[in-house]
């Protein structure tokens, strides 16, 4: 199966002499056995993208095909781990090569020696189809790993045992209709570039609750939905992605740091084990898988990292979990595509990106969704991708192709970030196409008046920007009093509601109930102000009221005191009528 290197140009190697190579077969390159993947075949020559630095390779060096496609290992042990772009565990790489990543390291993705306690949930003689759950393993305190019948297998369980197994040891046998015996172990492999099959896709009905007010209230994303977060550097993309990874109510988070900073992955690694899931109180790391291919790690593995991540997400979805995937940043992935494409001397499309960029982006987001999995239960993969447009200008190809396929757009705004308004999601430019689909859920689960409040808040913010244009011309003092009230309420919405401090213990997460009470309080005070103005109270005087101070501090009030606190505000707001009119 071995061939020889003919040419080397950066991460791209051309080789000859391989016997019957297939597209996307994984190969081992050179004496150090660097990992690569065949991406082009031509006249007996195979073009290989190498996932490691190619310095020192020479023409004539040996190249071997593994005959396998780039695949991931799927079994217990994934959750709580950190992998590189091609699923090599970084902790084992460290044990092998020290603090710096050496080349040609060959480590297994998962521990094949560790014994897991396995509990069978199907009995001998049961008829099972592909994707059916036959056993369970306590993978972490939060994730029960469900071992499924491999895709393409169905039949009768002729043998099944319980107890301690490694992921490679078969624990069950399935007799297929054709009479073949299939031995089943926990470990399964799946090629990353192929979506895992599902029964059918379902409409979105449930929001992914993130505890971030501007997201949950203004621009919600559905479980199984897709969202794009484009923004210039320093606008807080990463902080938002981290916040979503921390607080969203998904069962499992797959976080892929694709071509980004090393220290950001370190931050997750140091903070997540210490943080607790607000729902269960268990460490967040027990529901998190990290994929880290930082910017200085080889570019081809960066291209693969996105696929590795979404395949793992799909695998847990198939167990019936709600999985959320955060990709930071898809632009770096697209740039990796561009770099490889350039080395292949392909005809470039827009801004040097290959012509198939749009298709690749669409294919990726299409792997998200809320679905009936093969065994009939419901699972979802929510995909949230950060985009890093050059110069913050979203007219560039990666942003545009992403916006075409994603249904939520959180527009990060440099001006807001510069004024330290975080999260810097611009409320006028952003949108969520799920808002209408999810309205029913909010009305049933939060409050029947939800939609009314939400629309009113949006209208006030819209109105603010119109009034501000007038202020630019005539100044604040010349405004009608009612407009001043609108400005005041809008300011309160912006500063007291939309702004949320990720680094404050309390403010970092708001339950839906708290979000509702906060919005209600702000709008109620706004209504009272408007009434007072009608009675002749000058608008400016109201900004000094105690009730305004109380509204401003509401975000810092812990969840357990919030009901009481909001009653106080309602009372104070109601008193506004008497006091004001009396003073006049």
């Amino acid at each position, binding site marked *: 199966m071995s061939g020889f290197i003919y*040419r*080397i*140009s950066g991460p791209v190697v*051309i080789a000859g002499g391989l016997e019957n190579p297939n597209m996307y077969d994984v190969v081992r390159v050179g004496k150090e056995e660097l990992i690569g993947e065949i991406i082009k075949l031509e006249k007996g020559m195979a073009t290989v993208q190498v996932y490691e*630095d*190619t*310095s*020192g*390779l*020479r*023409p*004539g060096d040996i190249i071997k095909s593994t005959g396998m496609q780039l695949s991931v290992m799927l079994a217990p042990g994934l959750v709580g781990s*950190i992998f590189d772009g091609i699923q090599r565990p*970084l*902790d084992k*790489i*460290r044990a092998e*090569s020290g*603090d*710096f*990543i050496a080349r040609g390291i060959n480590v297994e993705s998962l521990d094949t020696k560790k014994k897991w306690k396995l509990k069978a949930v199907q009995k001998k003689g049961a008829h099972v189809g592909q994707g059916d759950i036959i056993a369970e393993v306590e993978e972490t305190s939060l994730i029960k790993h469900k071992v499924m019948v491999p895709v393409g297998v169905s039949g009768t369980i002729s043998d099944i045992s319980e107890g301690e197994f490694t992921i490679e040891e078969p624990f069950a046998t399935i007799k297929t209709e054709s009479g073949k015996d299939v031995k089943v172990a926990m470990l399964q492999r799946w090629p990353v570039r192929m979506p895992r099959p599902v029964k059918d896709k379902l409409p979105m009905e449930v929001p992914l609750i993130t505890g971030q007010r501007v997201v949950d209230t203004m621009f919600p994303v559905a479980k199984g939905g897709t969202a794009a977060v484009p923004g*210039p*550097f*320093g606008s807080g993309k990463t902080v938002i992605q981290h916040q979503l990874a921390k607080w969203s109510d998904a069962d499992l988070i797959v976080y892929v*740091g694709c*071509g980004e*900073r*090393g*220290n950001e*992955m370190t931050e997750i690694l140091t903070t997540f084990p210490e943080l607790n899931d607000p729902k269960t109180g268990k460490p967040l790391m027990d529901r998190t898988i990290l994929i*880290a291919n*930082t*910017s*200085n*790690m080889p*570019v081809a593995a960066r291209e693969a990292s996105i696929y590795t991540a979404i395949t793992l997400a799909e695998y847990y979805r198939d167990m019936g979990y709600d999985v959320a995937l955060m990709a930071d940043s898809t632009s770096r992935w697209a*740039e990796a595509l*561009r*770099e490889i494409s*350039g080395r292949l001397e392909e005809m470039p499309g827009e801004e*040097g990106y290959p012509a198939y960029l749009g298709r690749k982006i669409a294919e990726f987001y299409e792997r998200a969704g809320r679905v009936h999995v093969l065994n009939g239960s419901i699972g979802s993969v929510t995909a949230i991708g950060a985009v890093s447009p*050059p*110069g*913050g200008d979203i007219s560039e190809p990666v942003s545009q192709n992403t916006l075409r396929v994603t249904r939520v757009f959180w527009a990060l705004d440099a001006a807001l970030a*510069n*004024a*330290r308004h975080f999260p810097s999601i611009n409320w006028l430019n952003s949108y969520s196409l799920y808002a209408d689909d999810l309205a029913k859920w909010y009305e049933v689960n939060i409050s029947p008046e939800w939609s009314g409040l939400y629309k009113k808040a949006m209208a006030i913010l819209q109105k603010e920007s119109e009034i501000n244009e007038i*202020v*630019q011309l*005539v*100044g*604040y*003092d*010349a405004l009608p009093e009612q407009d001043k009230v609108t400005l005041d309420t809008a300011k309160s919405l912006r500063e*007291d509601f939309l702004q949320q401090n990720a*680094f404050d213990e309390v403010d970092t997460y708001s339950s839906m109930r708290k979000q509702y009470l906060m919005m209600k309080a702000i709008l109620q005070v706004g209504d009272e102000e408007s009434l007072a103005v009608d009675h002749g109270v000058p608008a*400016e005087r109201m900004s*000094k009221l105690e009730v305004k*101070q109380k509204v*401003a501090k509401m975000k810092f009030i812990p969840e357990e005191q919030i009901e009481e606190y909001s009653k106080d505000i309602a009372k104070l707001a109601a008193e506004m009528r008497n006091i004001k009119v009396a003073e006049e």
Partner: protein
Amino acid sequence: MGDIYYKTISQITNVLLFVDGIKDAAYNELVEIRLEDGRTVTGQVLDTRDGTAIVQSFGETRGMNTGNTAVRLTGTTAKLKVSTDMLGRIFNGMGKPRDGGPEIVQGEEIDINGSAINPYSREEPSEFIETGISTIDGMNTLVRGQKLPIFSASGLPHNKLAAQIARQAKILNKSEGFSVVFGGIGINSEEANFFKTEFEETGAIDRAVMFMNLSSDPSMERIILPRLALTTAEYLAYKEDMHVLVILTDMTNYCEALREISAARQEVPGRRGFPGYMYTDLSTIYERAGKIRGRKGSITQVPILTMPGDDITHPIPDLTGYITEGQIVLSRELYRKGIYPNVDVLLSLSRLMNQGIGKNSTREDHRGVVDQLYAAYAKGKDLRSLTEIVGEEALSQGDKAYLKFADLFESKFVNQDYYEDRSIEKTLELSWELLSNIDRNDVKRVKEEYIKKYGKWEEKNGPK
């Protein structure tokens, strides 16, 4: 490899040599190019296939020819010999002494491209570095192991600022200072002399290693230089347990050189002609900053770049900002007002600030008070541009206070002397003094207890 000299150059274009008949040149291998007059120039293999190698010359190709110029493979990729003997010395962009001193003979040979730090091995940078500059310590705090560039523009005093940081940087309550590795990339001789004199005067030269590539030196060496500097820094940090501050100036010249080579290679250009892989390339420089678990030393990077046309969206600052952990942006407007250091705090950012400040390092009120300064200054500046249209009279009383605040903020807080080493304590006290110019009720970003403890409203307006 070895002693074979190939006289089979078939083509020479700009800085590229096409050498035929070479069977096994390794990718990125160094070559020696020998000219007829005996001069030798170093080059590197860019593309290799059975039969032809494309070699990039680091020096000028003037005088080379296709008949008699010979190429020898050295069998090794670019390496640098490093040792503590390098402290106090000045080298060129190929790592050769340029101070007239002897070559470094003893030491370890290390591949200058380094290897990526395993993200799992990294330690989160969190130690506050006091630079004595309010706009940095107070509002864009630098921590050990961070990479924080200065975004400047031509004619602005970024070199002074970098020198001041190098002179004053220290860890609170500790006497240990930094070793400095300085990389001058394509700078002119005045700039080179400025830093040299500066380091000599402060005595920093004894714990500094300087690499200089002047604008008249080959531009290819600009690609190598930052890698030499960082290889040295890694040695000092991780082998000799030193805390190293790396100053690289000017990264714009580096990127220009990268573009020059890319064009010579006839690669598909990306934005503004810069190669599509510039992000990845820059990251292999910037990501070499950091701290590693279990090792004593650290590498803190302060790269300097000049934004062409003062444009922050230009690919050089843009890609840099996406990799580095924040940026210090210098403002032409403040410079014209005579304010030094002319840091535009609204555009500046330190991503690792939160880890370095607060109760156990600077002071408990730090985060809140700084957020408030930001908000107030942003508002003051907005109002300033508004008054240009409607005049100051149209502002409410409260808004006028913000205008005044913005002016005071620039003249008292941002502004300081080149030799003024302002402690963090003093910076925070100054912040509260300035905030007392605005209405106490507007201060929403600071906890009530800190306002009570540190606020200065009473002093000014009498007890409430």
